[in-house]
């Protein structure tokens, strides 16, 4: 009948993007992300993290249809941030949180070393470095944020 193919929940449809962002045409500082092949697992996580951002006025997610493997996150922000920024920050925060979780687990239950995984990791790191090379801003910021460096470089040096 109308049963979708089994793989359709795991394979991106031809010509479709995993993530799309659409700006709201009627409300200022609002828009929605369409995230394909994701569900409540990530949807609720992102929504919750966005709620902890003071600049976010509204954040919600929905799965428009149970047979469509996609999820929509709608964000509205104050003038302090664009919705896209709020999303980027939320993802950054979540990843930072997960890496702390990993560290905490590693201290008690070390991840068994796995040569294949290490290889993958190296590849991933190389990819990251490449990306960082293309966009130094992004790479640096992921490296860590230094509140002391606030205003630098430049700052008020001239005055």
């Amino acid at each position, binding site marked *: 009948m109308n049963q979708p193919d089994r*793989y359709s*929940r*795991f394979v991106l449809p031809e010509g479709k*993007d*995993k*993530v*799309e*962002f659409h700006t709201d045409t009627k409300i200022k500082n609002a828009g929605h*992300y369409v995230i394909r092949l*994701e569900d409540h*697992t*990530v949807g609720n996580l992102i*929504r*919750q*993290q966005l709620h902890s*951002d003071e600049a976010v006025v509204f954040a919600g997610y929905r799965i428009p249809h149970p047979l469509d493997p996609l999820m929509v996150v709608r964000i509205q922000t104050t*003038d*302090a*941030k*664009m919705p*896209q*920024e709020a*999303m*980027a*920050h939320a*993802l*950054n*925060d*979540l*990843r*930072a*949180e*997960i*890496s*702390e*979780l*990993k560290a*905490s*687990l590693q201290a*008690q*239950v070390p*991840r*068994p070393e796995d*040569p*294949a*995984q290490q290889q993958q990791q190296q590849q991933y790191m190389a990819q990251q470095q490449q990306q960082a090379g293309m*966009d130094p*801003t*992004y790479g640096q*910021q992921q490296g860590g*944020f230094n509140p002391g460096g*606030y*205003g*630098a*470089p*430049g*700052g*008020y040096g*001239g*005055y």
Partner: protein
Amino acid sequence: MHPSGYPREHRAKIIAQFLQVTCPVAAALAPRPIALHWVTSTEALQMDTDEHGRLQQPSLPPACIAASNVQYWARIGTLRYGANNVRRLALTHTTRRCAYEGSSLWKAPTSPCRAMDTYRPNHRHPKITIRKLEDDYAEFILSDTDASVANALRRIMIAEVPTIAIDLVDFENNTSVLNDEFLAHRLGLIPLVSDFAKYMVRPFEDFAEGQCSEVEFSLNVKCTEGRSLDVTDLDLIPDANHSVVPVTQALMKQQGGSVKPAAAAAAAAAAAAAAAATGVGGATDLDLIPDANHSVVPVTQALMKQQGGSAKPVAQQQQQQLYRQEQQQVQEDVTDLDLIPDANHSVVPVTQALMKQQGGSVKPVVPVTQALMKQQGGSVKPVVLLKLGRNQEVKLRAIARKGIGKDHAKWIPVATAVFQYVADISINQALMDELTEEQKQDFVNSNPHTATRNAFKYDPATRQVTVPEPEAYAFDEEVLKKAAELGKPGLVDIKQRQDTFIFRVEGTGVLPVKEILWQSIEILDGKLATIQEKIQEWETKMHGDMVM
């Protein structure tokens, strides 16, 4: 999108407001709409706003005003909200000098995702505290985070950690009482050792060199005796090219009653041989082309030459029948010992090669029972697939694939993965003191409990009600009802702690729970990383031509 993170009209507003405060004359002279041009500068101006975001008197350097009545330096990037709440809103290290130039238009905006300079870490610092960790059970406390993270981990442990399960069954013969679909479903539910899953690819994924997506098993059992025969996952024989051979006969003997009669295995050999032979279709011996220098030709060919086509070619299938008969004669001498290799000889070439490539320590794909029997000897009971009556036979080929629980429940690596909230129970001692001893005892007993476990406890010596085991509280509110009944509605206050979760994870044996836990965290991170990456891609796609 502009690096300051402000939409265009808002930027213009800020500049206008800024001009109004700093240089009313310039503001009055400025044409509308204000067009702005950004150039790189290390100079910047700090602007202060009150808690409503309104601009206050800026700490404008005097030199700035003196420099020009046309050019003003604004670091839109730095705004102050209130006294203590400093936040950075834009790329400060690429602070731009904002020059008012009536004629020029905006420089192309950049992606907001690159403006990570406005990022202020706003995350929690979660902790995991392991309480108990066994191969198939784990209990741990996840703290300093919220339910969305706990639930994401739980959902991933159940639905997204990949394992291996039988996914396709090719029946050659099934004369049992169970129909093919029924049996295929039961086969799918057999737990297979899935450590190899992370080196496998799913059927729709891209293959890299040395990766496989399928592991083949065969099952071939016939009941030749009067009593019924249990067919179990021990009968599932991994394909020689893919995985290991099953548990030895020695182990099966330890198992006692469930040792297969040798005939069953011999029949399996016969069938396998027959299967090998039937691979060729209706070719005849006429297709055999003799060597030109060779004088010996098939008899049919010679006869046809003599008789001019009236001789019937001997079908190769007839030859096969002869061959099969011969094979069967031989097979009477084949014992099941010959079929099942020694326990020490467990790995066959392809897997071995793959495992060497992948790092060596990977466990081969076999039914969990077989692996356990190898470890623990005969104390493990196999999974019964079906029972065969006299002369009933099942012969099939099963293909196991990598998959996740989201696709089908057979791939779920856990039996249970649950978390509970921790109860925060505070007793109003003043009210409690007003109760008699009996009432206190009643109150404690009103909480559903077992003989050994109760969240509340009454100590007759101190005449105090305490909460020794808040974890045992099931949020059933029975004690609240009791408190109301006793006329003391505020006697206890019970809350769920929103940042602490007790996880209990029970594995099915396909993966160690440690592995499930680690993988779930990695999968979650991977999902977020993918989204991050794809957002970048989307922004580049949309604004790529406009990136500064």
